[in-house]
C-alpha cells in the first residue's frame, strides 16, 4: 500500500485525536478554484482529502452533491482532469493522503488497468467506489490492492455481524462507516447509535473506523469523533462552496476563504473530541 495513509492515521492517533477527512467535488465550480480549495484544506486542518469524481447519475448522493457534480461536469471536469488535480496537489504536498470517491462507470470506461497506473502516478492513495460491494471485488478492488492502492469500503447500518467479515475482507486504509441508511446530506442520527456501531465494527477489524454522512458542524465532529477514529465531512463543505458562488455558478473571492473558515472550525471540533470522551 502507499505508506501515506497508514502514516497519517498513526501520526494523528499519537496526537490523541480523531482524523478529519474532508470531501469536496473535483472541478466544482471549476478546475482552478477546485485546486485552490484542495491546497487550502490541509492548511485549515484537514488530515485526509476525499476528492469527489463527478458522475452524471450519483445514486447515493443527496441534492447538494448532485448539484456539485453537475457544476463540475458543466465546467468540463473529467476523470482525467480529476487525476490531474491530484497530481498538481501532490507536487506540493507529499504527506496528505488523497482518496478518490465516486462511482464505477467513469473508471470502467477509462479502463481499470490504465486508471490504476495513472492514479498511482498522480499520487492517489485510496479509492471509495460507492457501487462496488464486496460481491464485485474482481472488478477494481483486487486489482487496486495488487497495485498498492487502498480500497476503502463502506459499512452501513444494514451490514450486520454476519456480513461484516465479508465487507472487511479486502478493505484497507480505513473503514468508512455510513452513519445511516440514506444518501449524503441527510440528518445525523443519534450519536450513541453511531458509537455502538463503531464499537461493533472494531471488534471485527484493526483498521481505523471513520464515520461519515450527516456530519456537518464542528460540534458534530467533536461528538462523533469521541468514539470514531475519524470523521468525514462532505455535504457541509459542498454547501459552503455553493453558497459562495455567483448566480451563474461561478467562483467568487469568498469561495476558498469560506471553505478554509469552515474546515478550521471542524478541525477545532476534532481537536476537542477526546476531551468529551474523557468527560
Amino acid at each position, binding site marked *: 500500500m502507499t505508506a501515506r495513509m497508514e502514516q497519517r492515521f498513526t501520526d494523528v492517533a499519537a496526537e490523541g485525536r480523531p482524523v478529519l477527512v474532508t470531501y469536496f467535488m473535483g472541478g466544482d465550480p471549476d478546475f482552478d478554484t477546485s485546486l485552490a480549495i484542495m491546497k487550502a484544506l490541509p492548511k485549515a486542518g484537514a488530515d485526509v482529502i476525499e476528492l469527489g469524481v*463527478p*458522475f*452524471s*447519475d*450519483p*445514486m*447515493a*448522493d*443527496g441534492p447538494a452533491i*448532485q448539484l456539485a457534480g453537475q457544476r463540475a*461536469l458543466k465546467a468540463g471536469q*473529467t*476523470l*482525467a482532469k480529476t487525476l490531474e488535480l491530484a497530481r498538481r496537489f501532490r507536487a506540493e504536498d507529499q504527506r496528505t493522503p488523497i482518496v478518490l470517491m465516486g*462511482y*464505477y*462507470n*467513469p*473508471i*470502467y*470506461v*477509462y479502463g481499470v488497468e490504465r486508471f490504476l497506473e495513472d492514479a498511482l502516478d498522480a499520487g492517489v492513495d485510496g479509492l471509495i467506489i*460507492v*457501487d*462496488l*460491494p*464486496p*460481491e*464485485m471485488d474482481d472488478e477494481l478492488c483486487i486489482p487496486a490492492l495488487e497495485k498498492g492502492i487502498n480500497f476503502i*469500503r*463502506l*459499512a*452501513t*447500518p*444494514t*451490514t*450486520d455481524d454476519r*456480513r461484516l467479515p465479508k*465487507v472487511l475482507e479486502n478493505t484497507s486504509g480505513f473503514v468508512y462507516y*455510513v452513519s445511516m*441508511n*440514506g*444518501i449524503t446530506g*441527510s440528518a445525523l442520527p443519534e450519536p450513541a447509535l453511531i458509537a455502538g456501531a463503531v464499537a461493533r465494527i472494531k471488534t471485527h477489524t484493526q483498521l481505523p473506523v471513520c464515520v461519515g454522512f450527516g456530519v456537518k458542524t464542528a460540534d458534530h465532529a467533536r461528538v462523533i469523533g469521541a468514539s470514531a477514529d475519524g470523521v468525514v465531512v462532505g455535504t457541509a463543505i459542498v454547501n459552503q462552496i455553493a453558497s459562495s458562488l455567483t448566480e451563474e455558478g461561478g467562483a467568487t473571492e469568498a469561495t476558498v476563504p469560506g471553505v478554509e473558515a469552515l474546515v478550521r472550525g471542524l478541525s477545532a471540533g476534532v481537536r476537542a473530541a477526546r476531551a468529551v470522551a474523557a468527560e
Partner: protein
Amino acid sequence: MIREQYVNQPPKPNSFRAGPDEDGRFGIFGGRFVAETLMPLILDLQAEWNKAKTDPTFKAELEKLGAHYIGRPSPLYFAERLTAELGGAKIYFKREELNHTGSHKINNCIGQILLAKRMGKTRIIAETGAGQHGVASATVAARFGLPCVVYMGATDVERQAPNVFRMKLLGAEVKPVTAGNGTLKDAMNEALRDWVTNVDSTYYLIGTAAGPHPYPEMVRDFQSVIGEEAKEQILAAEGRLPDLVVAAVGGGSNAIGIFHPFLDEGGVKIVGVEAGGKGLDGDEHCASITAGSPGVLHGNRTYLLQDGDGQIKEGHSISAGLDYPGIGPEHAWLNDVGRVEYVPIMDHEALEAFQTLTRLEGIIPALEPSHALAEVIKRAPKMGKDEIILMNLSGRGDKDIFTVGKILGMGQ
C-alpha cells in the same frame, strides 16, 4: 409434422436460456453494482425469489391472479387486414395491451408484489417512464393494500398525463423528478435514493428486466408467460413456430418475455427494436445497443449511451417507455452472442405505424410497440406469404393519444 419437430427437439448443449450465473452475469453483462446499504436486501430478495420459484403455492397464486385479475392468457390475434395490406408474411399480435391496466407491465408487478408480501415489506416504490409500470404498480399496491410511491420524470409527467391521473386515483403518490431531462433514468436514480433511505420497510418494484441481480432474471421469468403462451397459441393456429419474433426494447421486459421461450428454437429469427428517436447521428435517440458501449449503471453492466468519460447521456424518444439510455443485461448478451438482432426505428416511423394500425385494425397501440410494428411493416413485404411474424403488442395507446394528437395537429 413440424410440430413434432418442435416437441422432439433434442436438448441443446449450448442453450441460450441458461443465464444468468449465480452472480447474475450474462457473459460480461449484469452483476450487482449497488451501494453496500442495499446489498443485504438484494441477497434477501434473491433467497426469497429462489424459494418462491420452486414453491407450488407461489406458482398457483400467480396463475390464479393471472387468469382472474390480469385476464390471461392474452389472445393471439391474426392481423388479417394489415397482412393483406403489406402483401407478405402473416402477422400475428400477442395482445398484451388487453391485459388489466393496458400493458404487459402487470405480469411482473403481480409477481413482485407477491414476493414483497412474502418478505414482509410494508411499502412499495417504483419508477416509471410511460406511466404503464407506475399504473401497474399502483394497481397491485391497491389490490394488496400497500402504500405506493411512484417516481416519474417531470417531462414524462407532462407527456403521459392520463397515467398520472390513473396512479393518483389508485392511491399512489406520484413524485415528479426534475433532475436531468426528467425522464426514466432520472426517475430510477431517485427511486434508488428512496430505497437506500427506507431499506427496512420498502420493496423496490423495478419495472423492467434491468437493475441489479436478481431483477433481470426475475422480471424475465415473470414476463416469459407472454412467450410461453404465444408459442402454444401459434402452434394451435398454424401448427408451427413463427419465422420471426419482434418486440420493442426499452429496458427490455416485454421483449425478453416474448423472446426467451423461443431462444433455443434455431429456426426462429428474433429482432429487438430500439428507439432511434430523431436519428442516430446526434444524441437524440435511445439506441443503446446500436449506438452505445458497455458501462455500469443502475446496478448492472450493459450497453449504455455515454460519452468518452463514462458520463451517461440523456437520450430521446417520442415514446416515454423507450426513453432510457440503457438496456437489460440479457439483451446486451444476446446481441453479443448474435442470437438476437437489434435495430433502431425513428420517431416518425413509429408515428406512422401507430396510425396504420389504428386505421387498419381498429387497435390503438402504445408508442412503444409502435416501434416494433414499424419494423414489422418494413420486413413483412419482403417475406413469403407462407411465413409468419409474431409481434408483441405490449400496450395500448390511450396514454399517447394527446401526444400524438398534438404532433398530428388534431383536435381543438
